[in-house]
């Protein structure tokens, strides 16, 4: 039963084209280890350098978004007494229908959904030059409210996702919504 259950899970991932899947707390250490494996896999498959690089970049931006913004978190103490947040997220990297994809999912606050959706809808409609212009505009100004990073992570993903991005929200309860972003390369 146990093996059958795991094999079914494995098969469903396989059918979706998933080559790599991680569900759990994400930290910089996790990012670097998984990043190394993804790079190796892309090298073994002899993937075009620029495509491999885009897949890796999108992976980094996606995981760092989870590290920054996933609302499902625990705070741990490191040995040096410095606090570290453990943020929960789900990552999938795969290949299907001649496209690579990098998908991430994490919980966000309901209050943030409209802002996220509007931002992503705007990005989705822009062409290469439009994305570049918006990227620069944000770099010139201050970080958007509630953003701890460059505020340009999503634009960076869209720039590199030559075959498009998809996103979706699923309300979980009165406070939280599950957010997913899939980028195709």
């Amino acid at each position, binding site marked *: 039963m146990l093996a059958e259950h795991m094999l079914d899970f494995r098969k469903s991932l396989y059918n979706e084209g998933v080559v790599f899947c991680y569900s759990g707390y994400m930290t*910089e250490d996790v*990012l*670097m280890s998984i990043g190394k494996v993804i790079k190796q896999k892309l090298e073994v498959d002899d993937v075009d*350098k*620029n495509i491999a*690089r*885009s897949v*890796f*970049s999108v992976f*980094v*931006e996606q995981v*760092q978004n989870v*590290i*920054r913004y996933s609302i499902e978190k625990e705070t741990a103490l490191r040995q040096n007494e410095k606090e570290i947040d453990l943020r929960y997220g789900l990552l999938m990297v795969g290949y299907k229908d001649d496209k690579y994809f990098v998908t991430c999912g994490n919980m966000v606050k309901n209050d943030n959904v409209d802002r996220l959706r509007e931002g992503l809808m705007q990005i989705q409609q822009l062409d290469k030059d439009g994305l*570049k212009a918006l990227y*620069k505009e944000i*770099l*010139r100004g201050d970080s958007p409210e509630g953003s701890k*990073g*460059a*505020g*340009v*992570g999503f*634009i*960076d993903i869209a720039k590199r996702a030559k075959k498009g991005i998809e996103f979706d929200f699923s309300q979980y309860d009165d406070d939280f919504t599950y957010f997913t972003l899939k980028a195709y390369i």
Partner: protein
Amino acid sequence: MDAAWQCSEMEKLIIARTQNTPKILLDPEAGLIELTGKSYPENTSEQFGPVFDWLEEYFDGSPCNQTIVNIDIDYFNSSTSRALYEFFTLLNAAVKRGYGLEVNWIYDEEDFSTEEDGEEFNEEFSELGIKLVKK
């Protein structure tokens, strides 16, 4: 107090390269600023904070006549692009105050992405005259 004396007064700053952060070399005596490697930390302040402090002090005094800036970063994330933007803003301000700077953006011939990033920064900070240099 002459310029040569002052520029050698500051301490050299060297930050070692890691898997996701670049090697940083700030040498006041040689008038050399170098960033080499990859840069994709989630939080860039640990790496770039000391660089910005150093640069402010460097350009506050009388630096060596000509300062050479070599940026050889073959991959960086969006947080780093923000840090680089701040970095170039500081350099731009120094040039406006009359400091002599030569800025080189070094990239691999086959790396179109980094070449394009260099072009973008050059467009944005045209007063710096960033030179795109193939490896």
